[in-house]
């Protein structure tokens, strides 16, 4: 077997244009893949709690926001390699998504969104009758 790949550090990407929301916001890393029945979006949102996640679909734009609670104030930073902040990202959805059946679950800081495809109209046979 091949030697396992080593995981690399990637700097968190901060959203610069966010001005209406308090605190720094970061763009979460995502995987998006398509199966036969659905589009699946997986986002890394470490530190976000279930109730701090906000999902909104409007005009085919999916907005993901996740709040991260700040550290307790008794902790003083002694050394820092990354910044802690909320998450925000927008995705444009294709019209094949059944927006009413989108489901989401979060586990260990990973959000999995399942976006089912609209069931296409079944092929219909049209019979031709002779007069």
């Amino acid at each position, binding site marked *: 077997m091949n030697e396992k790949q080593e995981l*690399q550090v990637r700097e968190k990407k901060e959203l610069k244009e966010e001005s209406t929301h308090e605190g720094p916001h970061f763009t979460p890393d995502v995987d998006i*893949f*398509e199966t036969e029945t659905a589009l699946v979006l997986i986002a*890394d949102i*470490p*530190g976000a709690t279930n109730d701090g996640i906000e999902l909104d679909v409007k005009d085919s734009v999916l907005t993901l926001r996740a709040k991260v609670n700040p550290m307790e104030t008794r902790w003083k930073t002694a050394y*820092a*390699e990354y910044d802690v902040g909320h998450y925000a990202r927008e995705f444009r959805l294709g019209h094949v998504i059944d927006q009413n059946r989108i489901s989401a679950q979060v586990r260990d800081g990973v959000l999995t969104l399942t976006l089912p495809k609209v069931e296409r109209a079944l092929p219909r046979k049209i019979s031709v009758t002779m007069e």
Partner: protein
Amino acid sequence: MPRARWWWGADPLEMLNEMRRVHEDLRQTSREFAGAGVYPAVNIYDDGESYMIRAEVPGIDKNKLEITTKGSEVTIRGERTCATPEGAAFHRRERGMGVFHRVVSLPDDVEGNKVAASYRNGVLEVMCPRAIASMPRKVTIS
């Protein structure tokens, strides 16, 4: 001072380049020293009683996360994997997967045998209490 004279006589651009090179070297050394660039990125916090190493490591099976201590050195090892259904066609793949291994050196006053760790919401927190002797203590005046 012949050495100083040599410097001043040198091409100013050459000098600038040399300075930049020294600066780069220093930066590189300090980065290596700190261990930055090795997954996971860590922050270290201090509340006077304990140090806390905090790392954002989402989506890791707790059984694949291993924390060991040796003196005041804390080692974090693990693997991040992701199961994708067969036949999945990727549109975007930004989340990195693989194994990781990081050693964090803390000041000597950490009690290695009292280190405790928790993993919640994809965040690993390693609590490293300071030895009692090095904690601030109020001295009563008689």
